[in-house]
């Protein structure tokens, strides 16, 4: 991969950092050909991922490190996309236990991972051996003739060991 196609951000776990990362991700997505809506959704997914790290991984401590890597990639069919890796040194959680929740209930929490699952094409949580959590997620540029994404919104995605830190 060309180094010019990678952006690395290191932030403190303070909620003030969120708009900075959102802006960078949205800008990069648009540069890579994402539509306005897809770029917005990608930024939302990163925001939710970071919010979960802050709230749950670091229990609200505002001065802990979070590293975000955004890189350009292509699918097996050649579609361009962005891969986002969020890495923290917070509390480890078994990825298999991280679950979204039933949306039939009207209650405030537990929406973050549902959002991530819904708007991203690939989502995978892992526990690196040196501690903390890693979330890798990918979104591909929607094809102009792809009308399926809207209709499938809210249904389960392929694979991911998605989950909810919250």
């Amino acid at each position: 991969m060309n180094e010019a196609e990678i952006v690395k951000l290191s932030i403190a776990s303070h909620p003030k950092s969120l708009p900075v990362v959102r802006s960078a991700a949205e800008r990069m997505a648009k540069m890579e050909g994402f539509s306005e809506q897809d770029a917005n959704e990608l930024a939302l997914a990163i925001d939710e991922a970071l919010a979960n790290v802050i709230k749950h991984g670091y229990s609200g401590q505002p001065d802990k490190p979070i590293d975000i890597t955004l890189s350009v990639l292509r699918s097996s069919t050649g579609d361009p996309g962005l891969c986002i890796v969020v890495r923290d040194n917070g509390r480890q959680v078994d990825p298999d236990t991280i679950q979204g929740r039933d949306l039939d209930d009207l209650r405030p929490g537990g929406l973050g991972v549902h959002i991530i699952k819904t708007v991203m094409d690939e989502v995978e949580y892992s526990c690196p051996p040196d501690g903390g959590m890693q979330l890798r997620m990918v979104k591909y540029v929607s094809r102009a003739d792809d009308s399926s994404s809207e209709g499938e919104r809210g249904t389960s995605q392929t694979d991911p060991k998605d989950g909810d830190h919250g």
Partner: protein
Amino acid sequence: MDDTPNIVKEVRKSETATVVALSGDVDLHHAPTLHATLVNIANGRPKRLIVDLGEVPYMDSSGVGTLVEILRRVTAYKGTMALIGLNPRVRSVFEITKLDKFFTICDTEQEALDT
């Protein structure tokens, strides 16, 4: 020192409704102060609470969750709550989380008053 700006721009009370206008992104940074303000307003048990999101360019699940909790409080005392002025980006968060079916979402304040 808490330097978090309050994104509540205006609170208007009338006989028929209390209208709360917000301005700015509603995310994890701002949701706690928004929550405290809206809880305080809901404790006054307004018959109809209207939250104007016309100047909210962005909202994440923290903001949506805050509004869900306020909706639960308002409906618990048999009041009503409506959201107005949602831009497509904010509206999509309610759609993704399927919360649009729980909220009364209107384009204008008048429409919210008429429902």
